[in-house]
């Protein structure tokens, strides 16, 4: 009964506030202009909770990455946002409406690439793409757009092949072409780069950024956490819970409790100097020696810490070779972020 009550409440409250008060993490102090809003989203399948109390907002004209391990609830979240699933609890607002109440015109503004290939194995690449274009009402003079989409995913030469006769990676590319062909305003891409070679992945991300620059919004899930760097905002999902939403830089900061800088000197660093360095007020306790004369230090803010480190070195008669920001890999960041969850479990 609780679920039903919530559903009714959700239908009654289909509009988001005109001026959201939530700040945009990308531009602190600016209110977020969200195109997608999820509030306390929960989805249960029987006794199993796939998504639990997830809240976030996707700013218009941004790339929102949703990262997490397999089974973390990414696909369920995408299905909730696209209206394939109805939330057990909470609400979703897309284009100022609940996806369950979308008109045909609003649906036409969406592009959705499911995680698995869902087109027809007995149709050719071209026919599948043409079918997808027709689904979105694209007229008869759409040949150039189909060609461009296939060119982009490098499948135009394979347009006459049956889908069942092409590789898994090619099927992903065909799915992506089918999602992009009608030039949607808001894209939900569920692991679009899975099984794609690195060169083409780079091309995809370049294209996603182009789309963003054209004012389109992309909600993208990926298991390649390194791809989070390409996003404006990243949500980290684990075990159905959203751990954090932040910019890539913010995530790193959050993961390690500050920014990381590599501090390199011309002479060997002794233990006394290391202890004095660690005791500085803007340096976090955790430092890592990366060589005889280099250390990786976590500081509150890299921008302010660098001149202060230079000044301290001068006082200590230590000749500094370089002080550089260090961006840890997102694999490491992700492990750090989910570590408390894993430890708790």
């Amino acid at each position, binding site marked *: 009964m609780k679920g039903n009550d919530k559903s009714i409440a959700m239908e009654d409250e289909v509009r988001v506030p005109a001026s959201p008060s939530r700040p945009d993490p990308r531009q602190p102090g600016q209110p977020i202009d969200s195109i997608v809003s999820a509030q306390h989203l929960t989805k249960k399948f029987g006794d199993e909770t796939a998504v639990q109390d997830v809240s976030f907002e996707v700013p218009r004209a941004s790339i929102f990455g949703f990262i997490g391990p397999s089974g973390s609830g990414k696909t369920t979240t995408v299905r909730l946002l696209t209206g394939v699933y109805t939330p057990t609890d909470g609400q979703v607002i897309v284009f100022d409406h609940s996806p369950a109440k979308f008109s045909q015109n609003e*649906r036409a503004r969406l592009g959705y690439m499911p995680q698995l290939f869902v087109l027809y194995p007995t149709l050719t690449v071209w026919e599948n793409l043409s079918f997808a274009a027709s689904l979105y009402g694209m007229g008869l003079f759409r040949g150039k757009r189909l060609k461009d989409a296939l060119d982009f995913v490098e499948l135009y030469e394979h347009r006459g092949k049956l889908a069942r006769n092409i590789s898994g990676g090619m099927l992903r590319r065909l799915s992506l072409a089918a999602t992009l062909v009608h030039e949607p305003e808001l894209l939900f891409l569920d692991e679009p780069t899975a099984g794609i070679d690195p060169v083409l992945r780079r091309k995809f991300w370049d294209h996603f950024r182009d789309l963003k620059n054209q004012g389109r919004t992309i909600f993208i899930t990926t298991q390649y956490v390194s791809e989070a760097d390409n996003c404006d905002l990243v949500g980290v999902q684990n075990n159905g819970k959203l751990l954090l939403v932040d910019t890539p830089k913010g995530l790193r900061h959050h993961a390690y409790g500050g920014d990381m800088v590599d501090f390199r000197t011309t002479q060997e660093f002794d233990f006394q100097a290391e202890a004095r360095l660690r005791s500085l007020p803007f340096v976090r306790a955790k430092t890592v020696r990366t060589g005889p004369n280099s250390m990786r230090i976590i500081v509150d803010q890299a921008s302010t810490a660098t001149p202060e480190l230079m000044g301290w070195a001068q006082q200590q008669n230590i000749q500094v070779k370089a002080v550089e920001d260090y961006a840890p890999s997102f694999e490491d960041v992700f492990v750090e972020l989910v570590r408390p969850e894993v430890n708790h479990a």
Partner: protein
Amino acid sequence: MRNFFRGIIRASSFFRKEIFEILRQPRLVATLVLGPFLILLIFGIGYRDQPRSLRTLFVAQANSAIAAADIQKYGESMGSLLIYAGVTADQNEALDQLRGGQVDLVIVEPADAISTIKNSQQAVITLYQHEIDPVQVGYIINLGRLFVGEVNKEVLRAFAVQAQKDAVTVHANLQEAHQNVSAMRQAVQSGDEVLAQRTQQDLASNVDIVSLAAGASLGLLDSLPQTDGTNGGNAGTVQSILTDLRQNANQLGSSTGNQAERLARIDKIDTDITDLDARLAEFQSIDPSIIVSPFRSETKSVANVQPTVSDFFAPAVLALLLQHLAVTFAALSIVRERNVGTMELFRVSPLSAAEALFGKYISYMLFGGVIAAILSALLVFALHVPMLGNWWYFALVLAAVLFTSLGIGFAISIVSQTDSQAVQYSMIILLASVFFSGFIMSLDLLWLPVRVISWMLPTTYGTLLLRDITLRGGAPNWTLLGGLIAIGVALMLVSWRLMRRLIGSSQ
């Protein structure tokens, strides 16, 4: 308006998709066209419109009323229906042969037929069979009736033959009576009372003999108009002549009337004797077989064509095939979309349930229409199945059968979770159609409430309507056609509602 055109484009996506997918399976298309054609062709060649011949062994006791030679004659009188396999006195041995499949039928003659008949009871001829097919059992029961009819006819024929032989004696008596009458007339005219009395006694004696003998013989002849029923007024004419004859002959002896009255009576007797003699001659000239079986039936059709069995089945095969094709294709269509995962894509896209369904209806209607056109052309021009009616009516009925069958298929498809389920449901519809649609037996043989199932199946309507058009050359029964289309519309609405749940709402 723009949304309308986009809707058309969305629906057309299914149209093209379904056609492409079907055309990628040329063997399937060939099977759909050539399969039924070849079945009908082979059936037409192989079907023999002849009743089954039964190897029949007779059982008759040594003291049987029917002689062994007669038994063989009776068996052979059934033509090719019975193959005479001999006669035996051992019933158990005959039944063992029946169980062993050496003979198909055992006919046991009644042991004491004469005494049974004398007790005014029918003697029973028993037929033993070893069939499990109810149709064959019915055939043997009818064959038994025919056989007993033949035996009865043979008995009556023998009786008629004997009566005709007896008629020769009657004729001699009548000639003698005729001479008595001439002598009587002369005696009365000459006033010779002694001669008149003596001649009268001879005449009365001959008339009595004629009455006894001719009564039995001519009674058979008299019964012919009675059987007809149209000449009931003449019934008993021979009997009344004989009665008059006897009365007049007796009254001549006791009469004290004047000469003129006596001569008039003699003239009447003379006329009656002549009449009887003529009738007797007529009786003798008729074939005894005709006397005992004076009528036979002859059936003629007022239809313009007399279809063969394969002609009769061709419209039903066409209707059944189209129904099965449409139900199966439609049943697999949506369940496959669900299994492939495209339903998820549809739910997010602007596609509506009506557009998806419309596209699928159009594509399968077109495909089914092409198959129906090719098959119909093969049936009419290659197998020479009669086509007496209007081709447009024919096409209209086929379209209605396809439309309604697709509705059944889509409804199945939406409620099925897997391909196997959809196929199973389709097969059940096929099986129901074979039994309840009038395909193998007339609807009249079904209990009325069970016919509700029949009237839910497109094949029932299709078979009746197509037979009317092709074999009678008439217009379709508009009530039937309207009923078929109404079911199709109802199914379309149900499918649309179910499809909306699949495409239009979240899980």
